[in-house]
């Protein structure tokens, strides 16, 4: 099975306190720790496990810049056979639909049976997978948390729905699936593994290679744009305890007892 996994390099929210720059036009990006988007990493692991079961190749691709090559190499160190950087000045300012349009043109250059994305990235939009499927006119399923290859034409998948329940579906190939975290256990990638793929060439595809019209992507085509960032209003917010740890422990126990806990 030929599998394409669309990945993204993002600031790691578990490692960073996100601050705004003084103009509010962006977050403060100096000193941020970046990593592979968590759901995308699960998608790559799932692709590798499918390839291990039924054969084929897993390719990772990202729409971004030179800095984003590091996540491609990381995923190649995990076992992805090849990585592709999709990059062009003309792509900047693309909205979700623009990114999906760029990916669509790349998919059409290949012969993929299955395309995976993470369910969402740092903007929480959960949009590119569904858009890409619609542009390709492939079937789509979101929030996928298990995949079973039935035969060369069909997958049996489950989707995560409310209450921890699973919705089982059969889906025809080729298709696009957006992968939920927890579907698999992503393997560890050591520095040694990354060094081993350090010199593997990563081809770059731009506007011309993809045969895209500049007017169909980037800022000029975007129907949606971010005006600025701001800090959410705190509402009443929590009463922050500023005491010593011992004082805070005592206060918490008082509050819990007052609510009828600690019986």
């Amino acid at each position: 099975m030929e599998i394409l996994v669309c990945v993204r390099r993002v600031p790691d929210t578990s490692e960073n306190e996100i601050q705004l720059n003084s103009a509010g036009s962006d977050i403060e990006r100096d000193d941020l720790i970046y990593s592979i988007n968590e759901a995308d990493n699960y998608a790559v692991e799932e692709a590798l496990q499918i390839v291990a079961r039924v054969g084929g190749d897993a390719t990772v691709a990202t729409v971004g810049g030179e800095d984003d090559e590091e996540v491609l190499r990381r995923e190649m160190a995990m076992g992805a056979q090849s990585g592709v950087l999709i990059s062009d000045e003309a792509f900047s300012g693309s909205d979700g639909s623009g990114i999906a349009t760029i990916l669509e043109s790349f998919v059409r250059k290949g012969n993929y049976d299955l395309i995976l994305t993470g369910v969402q990235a740092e903007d929480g939009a959960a949009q590119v997978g569904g858009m890409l499927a619609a542009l390709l006119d492939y079937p789509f399923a979101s929030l996928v948390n298990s995949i079973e290859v039935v035969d060369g034409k069909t997958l049996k998948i489950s989707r995560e729905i409310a209450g921890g329940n699973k919705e089982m579906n059969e889906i025809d190939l080729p298709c696009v699936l957006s992968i939920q975290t927890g579907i698999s256990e992503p393997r560890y990638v050591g520095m040694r593994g990354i060094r081993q793929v350090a010199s593997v060439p990563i081809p770059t595809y731009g506007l011309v290679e993809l045969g895209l019209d500049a007017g169909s992507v980037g800022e000029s085509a975007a129907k949606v744009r971010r005006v600025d960032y701001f800090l959410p209003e705190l509402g009443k917010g929590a009463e922050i305890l500023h005491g010593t740890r011992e004082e805070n422990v005592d206060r918490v126990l008082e509050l819990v007892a007052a609510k009828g806990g600690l019986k």
Partner: protein
Amino acid sequence: MTARMFAYIPHKDGIVDDCAFELAAAARKIDPSASATAIITGWGAELDDACSALGAAYPEIWKIANEALAYPNAELVRKALLQVLPEKSIVLASHDHFGIDLAPGLSIKMNAAFVSDVVDLAAIESTGLNLVRQEFGGQVSAHVRCDIAAGAVITTRPGGFKAVEIGSGSVFVVDKSVGAGVLTARRRYLETVVAEAGDVDITKHSVLVSVGRGLQEKENVAIAQDLADAIGGAVSCSRPVVDAKWLEKSRQVGSSGKTVKPKVYLACGISGASQHLAGIKGSPLLIAINKNPKAPIFQVADVGIVDDVLEFMPALTNKVREMRTVAAK
């Protein structure tokens, strides 16, 4: 305004989803002088039951009855909607497991703008909508501008808009079933597998020690269990803890896990993603301990402590044990 607004209403067993009234509220904010038309799909008596509940929020309801839509399959619902929606429509849906399945692809097929998981918005301007979303797990918000000249698909965060009842209560249903055409899908629903019960029922406990990514590793679950044992509660968790296989899925609080109504909720090393908060009901005393002072959990907690949970939890446990020993003497 020229754009007509629609709200896609999910329902189950004849009962409409809570989002119906929130979407009506969002539509009112977009245009205070107009109402959205509800669109509802399904089959049989359940569909008619659901329609009759919508009069309280929508003056007009478009119903698409088709046996193929008895279970909501996003691919088929999309096909049906595309047959009946006028050009340049604004379509509202909920950012839930169905909306995530339906909405992005629908926007592409409509050639319309798409904005998801919206938490607030302002009244419509001639060709645009100004909306508010959150990014980076709720750590920052963003103003977003959306060009609606060709229509728009907007999904709203569950619980993000205060539900309103604005209809007269009378039900005006327009049957659009014929317009929806023949429906076949390349994705077929098989069955729903109900979540396993698990060893501990976190919904039955009045005190929850709930742990998140701040736990750092599986071995530290014991630290939370010690605290829960001392204090007389159970250990629950947020999604990353289940993803990392530190705890069973049955312990997860959130929209994709359990809904809990404890008296006391100790959020230990939990950042406070909206999907997690959606699982906490009944306004418990919410105490958050997190070493990141910017963690969104502090916006909703009653009491916050900026500290390392791996040190604070044992301190709390020791103190409780001390008190119990003194009391026993």
